[in-house]
């Protein structure tokens, strides 16, 4: 969508200064316009200051471009404390003369105005700071504070115009932050002066869960993504999650991973799922979704692989206990450090926040398999449009790292709606196992079928699914008189020596035809 158009002969594409913020550089096709001011607009608590601070810090640490942070609202200590939460050490950078911080305090009550003046003092301070660290980047956060500090807005506007011109003349890549206004983009119409690039930050609360969003409103002379992108302020800075920037270019490993259930592997072309593929296990309550997930985790650990399990229904110890009851001992793997279980309530945070948490954990732990149990709990409200893009980003992220992903999903018990409810996410999945309850003749039978499995021959039979003392197992379809028998009826028929498991039955039928 923001594909780079080939540079025209008539003029070079404008130079960019990378922000170093995950995703933002993708959306803006390389960063902010170099040597020009960019306006970042947003309401209170939108992360304007954080974005600006990261721009300065990344510039100084990653791109060798020192910066000046001039702030009008917070003081240096407050800023340093705030950005420390992102893992940035501003104090060290100021000591190393890579960043200069200047706090401009405008106290309305202390100031009396009489006669003509200009803002040369501000220019001199800025020039001095720029000089002191040989800065290439400048942040003015939030210069609009001057409007409440000074009475003479005519002078102020003229001086601001001069200031932005002055920054441009000095080739400073600048971020100017502004508070969102009611009728205009910013409260005091700063967009009038800074017109090269405007980024809008937004903070929205839906269903009591907040999501931050970022949008590039305009970017003169450059293609850019126009959508709203969710972004997060995480433990290591801001990350923008550009949904539409996802490229489907990850490598697909050919290696196959057994699921730990021999019969299930058999259904999946005899070898199990592909490494780095995504598996959806959906089913009604009590059909054994978690058990299959746990079984896959168990077998991966047994191969010496690392597994990360996100549990949104049970606590870690409850999960371990319950799985032990069907003979899957997860406890030994956690002790060995091969398995990590993260249990939390899905409502604890917004979807994006969960996503970032998962990202962090995956990055830290470097697992081979990730189990999310269940994803349906993450999208608490059914109209949660966020679940699909969130999953898409997670799957993409995992695929790029060749991490196999297993998601369980809780669905209703009625057959028709069952497939429907999964339509949204199922297209993202490579393998889809559907578990359902078959109720007849006074008993309930668990069944499993492979709805789809990309890139492999797979069985299209419905198998009976049982819990034993040593994990889950599948039972071959048992056919008697072209009737698929399950549960007690199967046992009865088996006792009487009638019918045959389907492999044999098929062979028998073929023989009969001859």
């Amino acid at each position: 969508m923001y594909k780079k158009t080939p540079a025209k002969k008539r003029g070079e594409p404008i130079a960019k200064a990378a922000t170093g913020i995950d995703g933002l550089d993708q959306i803006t096709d390389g960063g902010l316009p170099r040597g020009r001011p960019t306006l970042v607009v947003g309401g209170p608590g939108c992360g304007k200051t954080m974005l600006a601070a990261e721009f300065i810090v990344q510039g100084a640490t990653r791109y060798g471009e020192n910066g000046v942070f001039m702030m009008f609202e917070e003081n240096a200590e407050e800023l340093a404390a705030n950005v420390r939460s992102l893992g940035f050490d501003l104090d060290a950078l100021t000591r190393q003369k890579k960043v200069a911080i200047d706090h401009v305090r405008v106290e309305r009550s202390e100031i009396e105005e009489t006669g003509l003046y200009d803002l040369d003092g501000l220019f001199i301070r800025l020039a001095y700071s720029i000089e002191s660290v040989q800065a290439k980047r400048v942040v003015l956060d939030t210069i609009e504070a001057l409007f409440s500090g000074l009475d003479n807005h005519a002078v102020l506007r003229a001086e601001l115009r001069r200031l932005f011109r002055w920054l441009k003349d000095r080739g400073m890549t600048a971020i100017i932050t502004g508070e969102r206004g009611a009728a205009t983009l910013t409260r005091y119409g700063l967009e009038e002066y800074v017109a090269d690039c405007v980024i809008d930050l937004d903070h929205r609360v839906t269903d009591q869960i907040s999501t931050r969003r970022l949008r590039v409103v305009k970017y003169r002379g450059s293609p850019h993504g126009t959508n709203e992108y969710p972004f997060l302020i995480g433990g290591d800075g801001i990350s923008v999650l550009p949904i539409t920037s996802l490229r489907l270019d990850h490598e697909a490993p050919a290696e196959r991973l057994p699921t730990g259930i021999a019969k299930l592997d058999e259904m999946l072309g005899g070898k199990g799922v592909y490494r780095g593929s995504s598996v959806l296990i959906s089913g009604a309550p009590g059909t054994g979704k978690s058990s299959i997930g746990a079984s896959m985790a168990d077998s991966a650990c047994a191969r010496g692989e690392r597994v990360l399990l996100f549990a949104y229904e049970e606590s870690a110890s409850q999960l371990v206990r319950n799985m032990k009851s069907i003979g899957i001992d997860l406890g030994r793997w956690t002790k060995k450090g091969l398995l990590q279980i993260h249990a939390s309530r899905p409502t604890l945070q917004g979807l994006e926040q969960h996503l970032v948490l998962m990202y962090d954990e995956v990055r830290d732990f470097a697992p081979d398999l990730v189990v999310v149990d269940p994803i349906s709990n993450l999208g608490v409200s059914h109209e949660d449009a966020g679940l699909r893009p969130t999953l898409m980003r997670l799957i993409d992220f995992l695929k790029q790292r060749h991490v196999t992903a297993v998601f369980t999903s809780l669905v209703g018990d009625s057959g028709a709606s069952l497939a429907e409810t999964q339509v949204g996410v199922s297209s993202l999945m490579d393998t889809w196992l559907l578990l359902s309850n078959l109720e007849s003749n006074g008993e309930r039978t668990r069944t499993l079928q492979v709805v789809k499995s990309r890139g492999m021959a797979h069985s299209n039979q419905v198998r009976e699914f049982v819990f034993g003392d040593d994990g889950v197992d599948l039972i071959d379809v048992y056919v008697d008189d072209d009737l698929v028998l399950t549960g007690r009826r199967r046992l009865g028929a088996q006792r009487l020596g009638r019918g045959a498991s389907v492999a044999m039955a098929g062979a028998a039928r073929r023989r009969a035809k001859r």
Partner: protein
Amino acid sequence: MKKAAPAAKAERAAKPEWQLRLYVAGQTAKSAAALANLRRLCETHLAGRYEIELVDLLVNPKLAAGDQILAVPTLVRKFPEPIRKIIGDLSNEERVLVGLDVKPIP
């Protein structure tokens, strides 16, 4: 720089009661006007009790941050405390007196 005779007692080690600092940026018409206005006003209302320090930010740019100077010219009343600031060329005598909290001598 102009120094007046010390105030009556040895209070504040011979420092005058009113200590004013005027920040300017170079020799501009505005800064010249501000200095002239200030001198006239002090002579009229604070004769013998004041001291004016002139700071040119073009010469000493790092001093701007200390007193939170933004606009020039800025007049800062260092003493008596609390600090007050008056920005502009000080052309309106009445407002300067209010800003400095000086009781005009009729």
